[in-house]
């Protein structure tokens, strides 16, 4: 996620440079043929092109809005996840009765599992292997159990549910408190499901493909509409207009998949680290991991 106050051109330019370069050469050719080779028939009336440009703008705006909605929903879901993780940790540490022998261990295990859960969800959404991260934080039998699971975050939620049930059976939780804590697990599960929906359902391909094709056609036709009035200035005007359309298309495509391991992602690494710091402080640990700061204006 970009957190600096401006978008550096060097991030956009490489993605549009080839198309713009080709269009510039094409525009110069058309302007030269019209101005110096006497091919005046190359000119097209500007009115239809203006109408096409207007329609294309609406199409692009609609598609970019849809892409932004996905990106924002992903960010909101992770905001909800941060809150629910903190709530769950608070509930476990304050609502479960003390027991001189076991309860402290079980409560700590539940919070450790919550930390593992957010890391596992980040990895799950980025299709990243989470197990090297678990080697130091989870017991071997838990890691072995999780290796058998297709959906690792869901497996961790199940383990947490089992631990809560044990506490209930041991009389350290009454049914009211169990229901309250279990609701937090359900909230976590709902957030995960919504994230998976965004991850597994792409923006309809028509929204992705048609604007790209139509922009290509429009940018090719544009110099024909401008050349009569602008002569050899056509390449400058045409390339500038093309840049706007191509950049809009690129921006939309950048944000439409918010869990794809790019710098436009939801900043899950930063958020999971924040959750871990909060939860470890809840556990009373003095040494907590360092905060993750934006790198080169990008929070990842």
């Amino acid at each position: 996620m970009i957190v600096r106050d401006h978008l550096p051109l060097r991030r956009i330019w490489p993605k549009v440079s080839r198309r713009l370069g080709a269009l510039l050469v094409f525009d110069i050719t058309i302007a030269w043929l019209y101005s110096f080779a006497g091919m005046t028939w190359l000119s097209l009336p500007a009115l239809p092109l203006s109408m096409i440009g207007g329609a294309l703008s609406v199409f692009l705006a609609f598609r970019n809005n849809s892409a932004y909605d996905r990106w924002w929903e992903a960010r909101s879901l992770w905001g909800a996840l941060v809150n629910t993780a903190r709530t769950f940790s608070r509930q476990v540490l304050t609502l479960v009765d003390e027991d001189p022998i076991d309860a402290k261990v079980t409560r700590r295990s539940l919070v450790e599992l919550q930390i593992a859960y957010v890391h596992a969800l980040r990895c799950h959404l980025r299709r990243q292997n989470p197990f090297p991260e678990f080697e130091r934080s989870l017991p071997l039998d838990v890691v072995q159990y999780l290796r058998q699971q297709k959906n690792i975050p869901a497996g961790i939620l199940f383990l947490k549910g089992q631990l809560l049930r044990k506490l209930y059976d041991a009389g350290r939780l009454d049914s009211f408190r169990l229901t309250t804590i279990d609701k937090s697990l359900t909230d976590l599960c709902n957030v995960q499901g919504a994230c998976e929906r965004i991850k597994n359902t792409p923006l309809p391909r028509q929204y992705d493909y048609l604007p790209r094709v139509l922009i290509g056609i429009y940018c090719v036709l544009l110099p024909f509409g401008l050349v009569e009035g602008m002569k050899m200035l056509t390449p400058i005007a045409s390339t500038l207009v093309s840049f706007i359309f191509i950049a809009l298309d690129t921006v939309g495509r950048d944000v439409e998949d918010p869990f794809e391991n790019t710098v436009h992602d939801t900043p899950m690494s930063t958020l999971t680290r924040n959750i871990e710091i909060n939860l470890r402080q809840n556990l009373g640990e003095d040494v907590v991991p360092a905060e993750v700061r934006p790198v080169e204006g990008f929070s990842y």
Partner: protein
Amino acid sequence: MFAPRPLDVLYLTNFSDYCFRTIPTVAQLADMVKIRLTILHVYNPALDTQTTAAEKVHSFFPEADRYLACNRLAVPGPLVESVLAHLEGWPVDLIVAPASDAVGFPRLGARSSRSRLIERSGVPVWTFGRGVSLPRLQQPVRNVACWLDFHSGKTAHVGYALEYANKLGAKLHLLSALPAIDEGMLSLGTSLDEGKPLEPNAAAAKILGLCGNAPVVPQVHVSRWSGRSTLSKMLTECDADVVFLQHRESAVAEWLGLGLPYDRLPCPAICTGDKVNGPVWNLEPGQATRQKPAVVRPRREHSVPATVRVG
């Protein structure tokens, strides 16, 4: 027999998109074999201070702090010289060097840093470019390819490929292409150079000879050379997740700043230069590999013959 040891990995980052995309691959590797990871950022002292550079490198790939061994460093540039100086004090087994962000302009005469690293470091370099799809970087390594080029005569990378495929439990594909046969060659009836086979079975036999008694049974693919896309096609056919190859770059492509030829391959490449400093890896299996039941592979004399596919 030396005991297996962790793979010392030097992960270079300049925070490009490619650096971020590499993270899942390093995570997979850390699960398959034991690694000691060093994340190194070489900064420009004219633009950055040591403090900000260190802060940046600590915020890159933060989850690696939870790995068994991870070290982070920020050192002032220039890149290649700084990396070489680092390697003198801290030798590594593998350099992970993703591409930088494209600048969008041709950079005439600007030589790739990765190319210079491969040539001068004496360490295999893992890299990839725009030809690799994201899912390829995220999935575990199941197919390891190794490209054999009879023209260069260099085979140091074969040992790495054998060890890598063996310890990761992946299938090994040995790839090579024969020169296109023209009338001149047919009239001679034999190769001008005894070291370069012209016939598929001879090539396959020569390739298998390089493997010795290796514990992996390779699959040999020999094809006719049909231009620069030959390797890409073969890699796609065998669904390779990584390819080991000997570094070669044409002088013209180098001057034109076209980027490394591996940047257009469909999978990441691990490249070795003319000289290789360290011994062949002896990888210590990671958690994921340790859990798999041990596969007893027959010795070569008793094994089924390696599959040879001639395309």
